[in-house]
């Protein structure tokens, strides 16, 4: 197991290198360092000298990928790519282009993201499981048919409708919770209600349908038929056999998304004014803060790989027949 994880971690290095290079190229194909400087220096009265000084200060006065003027190793090392990427691999994200410590910001903004994502995941899981089981229980009846159609209908509504509609209905007409915003500590609770409800509702369609498929598959299996033949009640069959066995794909499905919870949701966070990592990334893209974009992409890639490894491990734990090799 440990050997496997180590190997996967080593395998991650070329991937991260690739991700970093790609981000870098994508970013600088569309943005010149002059653009960045101008953007950060403001709108009025920006002269070329100030641009040069800014670039020099932030280390953007070097060549992008290859330094033709340098000699020896410096051809590669004395470039923006190298100097800016080095820290990432030891998770030292450095400072954003406007001078803030990125690592500190990430640690701060991680919590609001989690505060939305974790309850949404858990409540969503509970609701979807319940509905999935219910529909599986009433399989081949009108409830099943209309349940599935209802799920598909829920899936066919754009997420934006849920957010706009929810804010309008619950926040404005009913005046039950604040429309948007965030606070620290216990005060955050009332801000979380709306995004979590909307997150759960928008996930019901796809989730329920998926769980229904899983349960139906389990119900069709031989051991369930045997259990039923033994005279177990439908309820016991459902909970003891179908749910228990169906948990394997469900848990692995959950494990995959666990690491990405940190990254937050771009749309929800910016609509509700929640200072999480999702809105952090979006702001950085809009303000062309390359240092943040690069850090977030790197972090996202790391978490993605961690997710893959976790899934593998979850499989082996859930099903001992699978061996990691």
């Amino acid at each position, binding site marked *: 197991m440990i050997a496997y994880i180590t190997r996967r971690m080593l395998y991650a290095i070329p991937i991260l290198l690739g991700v970093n290079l790609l981000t870098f190229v994508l970013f600088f194909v569309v*943005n010149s360092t*002059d*653009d960045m400087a*101008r*953007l*950060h*220096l*403001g*709108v*009025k*009265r*920006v*002269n*070329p*000298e*100030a641009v040069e*000084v*800014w670039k020099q*200060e932030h280390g953007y006065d070097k060549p992008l990928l290859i330094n033709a003027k340098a000699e020896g190793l410096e051809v590669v090392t004395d470039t923006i790519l190298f100097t800016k990427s080095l820290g990432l691999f030891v998770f030292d994200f450095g*400072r954003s282009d*406007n*001078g803030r*410590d990125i690592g*500190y*910001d990430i640690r*701060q*903004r991680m919590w609001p993201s989690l505060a939305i994502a974790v309850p949404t995941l858990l409540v969503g899981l509970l609701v979807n499981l319940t509905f999935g089981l*219910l529909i599986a*229980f*009433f399989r081949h*009846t009108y*409830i099943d048919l209309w349940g599935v159609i209802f799920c598909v209908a829920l899936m066919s509504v754009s997420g934006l409708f849920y957010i*706009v509609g929810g*804010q309008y209905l619950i*926040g*404005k*007409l*009913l*005046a*039950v*919770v*604040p*429309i*948007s*915003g*965030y*606070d*620290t500590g216990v005060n955050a609770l009332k801000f979380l209600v709306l995004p979590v409800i909307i997150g759960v509702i928008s996930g019901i369609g796809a989730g329920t349908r998926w769980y229904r498929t899983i349960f139906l598959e389990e119900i069709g299996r031989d051991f369930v038929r045997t259990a*039923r033949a033994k005279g177990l*009640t*439908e*309820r016991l069959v459902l909970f003891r056999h179908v749910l228990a066995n169906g948990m394997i794909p469900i848990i692995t499905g959950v494990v995959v998304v666990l690491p990405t919870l940190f990254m937050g949701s771009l749309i929800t966070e*910016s*609509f*509700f*004014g929640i*200072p999480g990592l999702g809105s*952090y990334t979006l*702001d950085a893209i809009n303000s*062309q803060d390359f240092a943040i974009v690069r850090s977030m992409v790197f972090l996202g890639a790391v978490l993605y790989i961690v997710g893959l490894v976790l899934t593998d491990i979850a499989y082996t734990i859930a099903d001992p027949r699978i061996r990691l090799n």
Partner: protein
Amino acid sequence: MPLMRYLIVSAGVVSVLSGCIDGNWNSPYPVADRDNNTLYSSFSERPKHLDPVRSYSSSEYAFIAQIYEPLLQYHFLKRPYELVPLTTSKMPEIRYFDARGRALRTDVSMDRIAFSEYEIEIQPGIQFQPHPALAQDGDGTYRFHALPPEQIAQAHTLADIGSTGSRELTAADYIYQIKRMADARLHCPIAPIMDEYIVGFSQLAESIAAARESQSSTHYLDLRRFELDGVRVLDRYRFRIRIKGKYPQFVYWMAMPFFAPMPWEADAFYSQPGMSDQNLNLHWYPLGTGPFMLTENNPNLRMVMDRNPNFRGEPYPTVGSDEDAALGLLEDAGRPMPFIDRAVYSLEKETIPYWNKFLQGYYDASGVSSDSFDQAVQFGDQGQAGLTDDMRERGIKLSTAVSASVYYMGFNMLDPVIGGDGMRARKLRQALSIAVDYEENISIFANGRGIAAQSPLPPGIFGYREGEAGMNPQVYRWVNGKRQRRSIDEAKALMAEANYRDGIDGVTGKPLVLYFDSASTGPDAKARLNWMRKQFERVGIQLVVRATDYNRFQEKMLKGGAQIFQWGWNADYPDPENFLFMLYGPNAKVSHGGENASNYSNADYDALFERMKNMDNGFDRQKIIDKMLALVQYDAPWIWGYHPQSFSLHHDWYKNVKPNLMANNTLKYKRINVQDRTAYQSRWNRPVVWPLFALLAVVVVSVIPAVVTYRRRMRKAAL
């Protein structure tokens, strides 16, 4: 029945919960703060720099103008705008000298003046806000100027450092800040202007740069050691600034935060190694003498300013017009400011939640976006703006002002088709100036909030003329005492004269295609661009819109690659020079990197501009300005566009509101009636809970058939 029990329990939980959440459920603020004397406002964009040497945008000024105090300020109530002392004891005294250093009388002709000197005296007894950088031990050594790196590494906010101190403001603090402007590392945006005027500024910049070279970049550089020829300390409270020539606009700069005092201790404190790594620097934690101080700086969530306990208690202005008195703006006359204890600015990026929260009473004031306009504002019988009944019932108040800015449509004068001094291109530009109907633009896209511009000069700026005298004769006619846009037929006739009959180039026989570079994005962009296309179609010209992002747009402007573009300008100070310089040849964007984006260059205009620039307001200046405007109106390098009118709303409990487009430090004048606010808030925000219970009932009812089926099945399975 277990279901019933569950229902009862959950109902109990709900009632207990609602008991806990006292007050309004949807209030975005803690319940405990409800009755505090706190102002609630918002910011949509994170302020980037709070260092007065660098800040130059309104989002930054919203904060630092309350914290830092430059030498002068604009009078809160008087119009036209008038500068008055802020920290000085009186307005600066100006003296003129000729090249040999002899003092001149004030009324001598301009070309004899080689130097001007401003003598400034600040009030004694002004204290800085409490700040650790100023904390001293009993023996006068600074307590936190040599912190061990471990302690810095553990501090994430200023409060983590420890105790605070204060000291009196002196003339040296102002001089220190002027020297900071010369430090290239601080990116002062107005350094080139100061370099042009302040004597010895460029030498200082050079010696600072040299000193920076020789030491590590983070190390503290004590600017007190450097000499600035043009600035002299006279005594503890007095100093003198010497500038080249005569530059009447210089006093306006003295009212901007660039001329705020900066104690050397702040620089020394923040340049300790490791400080900046903890976000502890002047961009994040200002140190000023103003009525407020920044106590929480979390740009991801909110910014909080608290009353500065050391503030001297500047009195509320006592002079105002009768109208001001009628509006109750003089009720607080003479009382010590500020009136509020705390101002909370929450991050609010989306307009919908922002507007809704304003209506719910959780923001004290709001701008009026074009989409909430109809809801809030209606025009009266004579076309004057007023509030809708709904708003009036809520006790909401409206204030309007024409802002000192211009949104224009520029032609790139370097373009072979549309630009240049040729008659053909000029006629084309004139035709387009008529065709693009900005009155319609204002009514569609700005809800009529603006006035069509006749020249770059907005109302309220010296040189602007009302009525026929101020009309642009190329585009308008004066009919029955009213300005009337020339007809589209006249535009077509001009097109024909330019050999573009019906939009077909008479030389090549091809239709004329023009290119419009637009950086506008967002929901409205499509409608705006379509509108623009229609305007050009009216004279048969096909307009191709080249949409781009703002960065690309700026670069294009810098390289002169655009043909037609739209841009705007906000005044730095209320002087015509600040607008007319946008058409001054040596300010051209492409050749000089200046603000003359259309690269207009006209020798006559340039000569007039140079004369007008340094004149005092008066009859002569007006005459020159008239001449200049006639020139550019004829040449039509811009379609003059419009001057936006700013509308803002505020609640009944928010007092002392008068739009002041020049002053940024207006927070100190504001007063809030907290009792009224609380009452209104709870009236407007009674939670509606019955739909939730109705929903619950529906769920329960719909569960019944499912339960019935379930039972039937169980029985079947049991059989």
